[in-house]
């Protein structure tokens, strides 16, 4: 008879236990694979737990209303369909363990701190004893890492070895190996008769999660003393949200910036020669419009810059929605030009004028400032040479455009091939990118392609 365990499942990283709220099946009931057999509840969540395989429910190890740690066996299934419940010796051991645990919570502390005494569990094999001290999840984990569970101090329920204990043990082992003689080797097959009983490094082990919650927690701006002549004003909503966004954005993404100098001679020429034609179509085509047009085309070739890191995933955005930073003086807002890669140069120019005007009149709808997949900011408009912009949260890149200025540059005469000095309109662009998902070479290729497109801007854009 194949007897399989049904453990309390792992329902989330921070969920360590669950309460059995309801058994949907009774002992002796046949169950289909994936058929719900019980319901558990944690906090605001109810979850149905499906049978891992088809079979017969032969034993319920945790009663309704009881709360147990993730990984604890809650039931046993007989997968070969023996209808009558026939708990094996093994099963009795497990069931008894749960009952004993409930009855003797006071024993927890002592057991977890001291080395388990063999005398307490006489008559049990090493394997059975280890089984009592751990869950299948932990045993599997120990197996994967080649950890002898007998050496691990258990801090879980009734001295059980938890996942964290194994992690702590691995960590302490690593440190020991690093600090002590490299020659000191542990034999997994023959455990040291006097194991050094590694103290779980609780503080160290908890540090990452605390760091994590601080990291993503609400932004706390430190406070400073006010002096006599000072004036104190409460931040308005835009300021507060901007502040919070900036802190989070800068914290989360490792920022790297790369620069390139771009010649705007051709764009400048196109702007001037088409000014009247565009004006007759009601458009004022700014340098920014050219940049948005070029960027939205180039982004299609560089999906990692039109993306975001999300947990352990990368979300490549299906649309190219370019956010344009607009100065509200005071304040800043970033309206979004949706599907910019599908708009013509004139279409983009009109969108920019419209969004910027309504932004200054504070008339943008919430949808118009959301969903950006890449952003452009133009510190150059006020004469700044270049900036190091912060990448908006949920995106992977931002372009900063510097002032377009006349510069004296060395050029090559296209006819004679001779070097010459010329006066050209040029600008320095900076690309800020999230180094988690964008490599330096990607950014270099992106900027080179952008330069190429802007310096040889098509007539029919």
């Amino acid at each position, binding site marked *: 008879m194949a007897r399989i365990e049904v453990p309390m499942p792992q*329902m*989330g*990283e*921070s*969920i360590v236990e669950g309460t059995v*709220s*309801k058994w949907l099946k009774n002992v002796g009931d046949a169950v289909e694979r*994936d*058929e*719900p057999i019980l*319901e558990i*509840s*944690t*906090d*605001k*969540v*109810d*979850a*149905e*737990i*499906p049978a891992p395989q088809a079979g017969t429910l032969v034993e319920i190890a945790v009663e309704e209303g009881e709360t147990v740690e993730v990984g604890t066996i809650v039931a046993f299934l007989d997968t070969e369909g023996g209808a009558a419940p026939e708990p094996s010796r093994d099963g009795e051991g497990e069931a008894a363990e749960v009952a004993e645990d409930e009855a003797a919570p006071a024993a927890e502390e002592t057991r977890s701190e001291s080395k388990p005494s063999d005398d307490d569990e006489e008559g049990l094999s090493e394997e059975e004893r280890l089984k009592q001290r751990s869950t299948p999840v932990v045993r599997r984990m120990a197996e994967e890492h080649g950890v002898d569970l007998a050496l691990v101090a258990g801090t879980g329920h009734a001295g059980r070895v938890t996942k964290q204990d194994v992690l702590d043990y691995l960590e302490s082992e690593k440190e020991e190996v690093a600090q002590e003689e490299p020659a000191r080797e542990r034999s997994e097959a023959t455990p040291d008769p006097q194991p050094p009983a590694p103290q779980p490094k609780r503080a160290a082990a908890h540090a990452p999660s605390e760091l994590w919650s601080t990291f993503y927690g*609400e932004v706390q701006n430190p406070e400073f003393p006010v002096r006599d002549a000072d004036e104190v004003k409460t931040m308005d*909503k835009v300021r507060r*949200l901007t502040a919070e966004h900036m802190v989070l954005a800068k914290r989360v993404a490792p920022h790297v910036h790369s620069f390139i100098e771009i010649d705007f001679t051709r764009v400048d020429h196109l702007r001037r020669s088409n000014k009247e034609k565009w004006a007759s179509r009601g458009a004022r085509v700014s340098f920014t419009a050219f940049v948005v047009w070029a960027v939205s085309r180039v982004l299609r070739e560089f*999906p990692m810059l039109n993306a*975001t890191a*999300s*947990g*352990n*995933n990368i*979300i*490549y955005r*299906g649309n190219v929605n370019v956010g344009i930073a607009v100065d509200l003086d005071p304040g800043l807002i970033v309206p979004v030009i949706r599907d910019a890669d599908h708009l013509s140069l004139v279409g983009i120019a009109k969108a920019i004028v419209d969004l910027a005007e309504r932004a200054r009149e504070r008339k943008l709808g*919430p*949808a118009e400032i*959301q*969903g950006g997949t890449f952003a452009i900011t133009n510190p150059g408009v006020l004469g700044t040479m270049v900036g190091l912009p912060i990448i908006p949260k*949920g995106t992977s890149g931002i372009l900063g455009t510097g002032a377009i200025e006349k510069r004296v540059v060395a050029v090559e005469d296209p006819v004679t091939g001779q070097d010459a000095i010329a006066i050209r309109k040029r600008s320095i662009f900076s690309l800020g990118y999230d180094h988690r998902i964008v490599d330096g070479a990607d950014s270099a290729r992106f900027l080179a392609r952008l330069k190429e497109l802007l310096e040889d801007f098509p007539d029919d854009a």
Partner: protein
Amino acid sequence: MAETDRAPLDIEVRRLGRVRYDRAVELQEALIARRRDGVIPDQLLFLEHPHVITMGSGAKVEHVLADAATRERMGVALVRSGRGGDVTYHGPGQLIGYPILDLKPDRQDLHQYLRDLEEVLLRVVSGYGVEGRRTEGRTGVWTEEGKVAAIGIRVSSGWITSHGFALNVAPDLSFFRAIVPCGLADQRVTSLEHLLGRAVSIDNVMDRTSVAFGDVFGRTVRAASESIPPEFVR
């Protein structure tokens, strides 16, 4: 990225209007089964319930303050619900959102899912200039004036979500006096309308919630291509 890669990431939004609680449960069960079989993409249901007090799996009977006669007079039903959480009230003016999402393979973390729902609601209220916040250990969205949104979810075999959130847009807040909301005796309940001191269109809230939902979950949200069988919606 090819179109075919994007399609299954879409979330279909359905605006169902006013739906009786038990019918909404039936509808969700039907959609869960269809989602599990891969017949439909993820769903986001928007609706309102007629007056009803629901008891989640963690509900304590003493948190229902109104006795049967009082409930009868108020026209409030009392039902047990398969969601997590304590006692709550639903009624007209409250936007109910029931996401039917398959959390496999990359979102199998129920606490994260709760935090994501909170994030959606925080963004929505923030869009109205209301400063919402989380309260450690008390799932939901809170403001200076009290709780503005409640969350309670269920996950069925195969990590498919149901139930979801209730955002108080403009409900008659006096109905909350019939219960101890979420078992928290010391907490007040408020609404967007109360916080803003002006009328708020529930359709507008749905629009904003759709957008926020898509952004938080990194998905495209679009109107459902096919309508719900009429027997579910009365």
